[in-house]
């Protein structure tokens, strides 16, 4: 029996992950990418040409085309209005991280999705990195015994554009790069972050940037494990790769190091004037898209929920609060 084709649209494509998500969906059988809309006509034109997906001038028209699901990859602050627009008119929504820029917006997204019965998934693709999946399997098997601490980094390059606009992004490096790793830790152990301390640097790595570009978090989890996370945009343009996701777990029986994306060939090119690390690792966005489409097609709940998105955002916002006060912040849920 042939499966029903899943019809998907893109609402907002300002986040660069949208290109990878769309490319993966286009390669999948049983999926039709019906169209896209973005508030910026020039971005919409470029994007639709690049990935060969039909452009709609009006988001309403796209939703009227009869969609099973939408992918929201707009600027962070616009997640809420776009989710609210789509909720009730599609069965499922995939929303880029962070879920929103404020807890109020995040809660509004959750409430609206609950009220309209739409299944909301948050895009945390690192959960699909094979090395992370293996780490989780080893942790679940108890290979490290009791866990003491984690030391993590999610370094990146300064992305520019709307990512450095406080209104649209809600913050810089800390909101951008806290949520991925915190989501992984919550997922590993089904825990919450109970306390956060943070040192945040504003325009520290990029003088004049006008937003935080460096962040160091120290946190406590509800299972008694403590840890650290470096969210800094500290990879300069001359660095061989954009950034990293690293997690080191220390337990009573030993240590596990994961450099999740470090499957690279080294390419020295006179054309680029530098040496680059080029990934040969499995596309983590493909895993996310397969999971999402499977969810849309079935009756099951999303693997990564709106609550997951909200909880990760709460940690990033608490980090800013701690940096402001100079003392740790307790998270109440």
């Amino acid at each position, binding site marked *: 029996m042939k499966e029903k084709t899943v019809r998907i649209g893109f609402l907002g494509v300002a986040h660069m992950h949208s290109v990878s998500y769309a490319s993966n969906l286009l390669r999948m059988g049983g999926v039709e990418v019906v169209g896209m809309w973005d508030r910026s006509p020039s971005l919409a034109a470029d994007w639709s040409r690049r990935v060969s997906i039909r452009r709609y001038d009006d988001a309403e028209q796209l939703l009227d085309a009869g969609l099973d699901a939408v992918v929201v990859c707009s600027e962070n602050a616009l997640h809420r209005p776009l989710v609210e627009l789509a909720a009730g008119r599609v069965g499922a929504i995939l929303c880029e991280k962070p879920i929103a820029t404020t807890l109020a917006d995040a809660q509004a997204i959750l409430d609206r999705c609950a009220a309209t019965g739409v299944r909301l998934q948050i895009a945390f693709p690192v959960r699909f990195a094979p090395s992370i999946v293996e780490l989780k399997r080893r942790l679940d098997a108890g290979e490290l015994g009791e866990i003491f601490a984690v030391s993590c980094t999610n370094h990146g390059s300064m992305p520019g554009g709307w990512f450095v606009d406080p209104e649209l992004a809600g913050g810089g490096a800390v909101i951008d790069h806290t949520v991925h790793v915190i989501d992984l830790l919550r997922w590993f152990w089904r825990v919450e972050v109970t306390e956060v301390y943070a040192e945040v640097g504003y325009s520290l790595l990029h003088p004049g940037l006008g937003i935080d570009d460096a962040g160091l978090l120290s946190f406590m989890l509800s299972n008694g494990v403590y840890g650290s996370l470096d969210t800094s945009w500290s990879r300069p343009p001359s660095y061989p790769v954009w950034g990293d996701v690293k997690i080191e777990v220390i337990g009573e029986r030993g240590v596990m190091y994961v450099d999740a994306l470090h499957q690279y060939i080294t390419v020295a090119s006179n054309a680029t004037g530098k040496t680059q690390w080029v990934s040969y690792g499995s596309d983590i966005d493909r895993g996310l898209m397969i999971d999402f489409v499977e969810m849309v097609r079935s009756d099951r709940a999303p693997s990564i929920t709106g609550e997951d998105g909200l909880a990760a955002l709460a940690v990033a916002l608490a980090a800013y609060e701690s940096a402001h006060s100079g003392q*740790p912040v307790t998270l109440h849920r």
Partner: protein
Amino acid sequence: MQKVGIIGTGSIANVHLDSWRRMPGVELVGYYDLVPEAAARAAQRYGGRSFASLGALLAAVDVVDVCTPAATHKEIVLAAAAAGKAIICEKPLARHLADAREMVEACQRNDVMLFPAQVVRFFPMYRRVKERIDAGAIGRPAVYRSARCGAFPRPGAKFSAGHYADFAQSGGVALDVGVHDIDFARWCCGEIERVFARGLTFANRPYQDHAQIMLRFTSGAIGYIEASWAHPRGVFRTRVEVAGDGGLIEWDSLDRPPLMAELYDEASGLQRIASSPTAPEDEPYYAELAHFIDVIEGRAQPIVTAHDGLEAVRAALAAIESMRTGQSVALKDFGE
């Protein structure tokens, strides 16, 4: 010719002795140890004589190398300063801040050199990191990270139980190990304004300790230091990374070494040997002790001062205080 006396003949003394005995212009006069047999063993092995008292040793030397546990440094340094001897003192400079202050003041008063053995500044890769920062390769330092991770030192051994495992004696991993990276971070990024730390120091885990220390420098830069005695036996991993507004420097002991051997035999299977050797004069402890001699003979300016040793102790003790209280600790108000 500098006449050198060693006080304390434990593990770090043996490392120093391997350098002292091959250094030109130095005469290894002898040893004093609370355990007379230990001093006698050192004399047998490395030459020189064992002294029955600290005073007897001080009367016979120009230079003292203090290789005893941190909590005993003060008494020895005060005696050596009163005797007018140049002093190189193992890290941490002292177990307590007040002790470190007293030592620094006594050496100033007696006009003797007190050189803290912050050996990380003499490890060639760390030296190169500092040199590149000074050359402007990464612009202004903004985010510092470093780690020093190994297993608990000789768990179960008598000395370890009485020293490393006794917080009152050693200060735990944050002081004993953290002081290395704190000193290096200060060297790269300047004065530290405040610290916050979490760890296992007060978790009542015999033979396991771990610390994650967050730093804010007065320059506005931020930093992170991990010090571990919770890693598996046989692991010793160090790494350092400094990001600035114009670039990034990183080094990791897991990076590929220049020499690797893969040897197979039926009995033990595959053996892997990795080695990153240096010329004898670049070996970090040799470089450190030779620099100290250069300084006291007027051929070099010290790259690390007693003040640096004291400030590193201050930040490490503040990190311990943060672990205890759960609050960040401002260094300017911190007096232990």
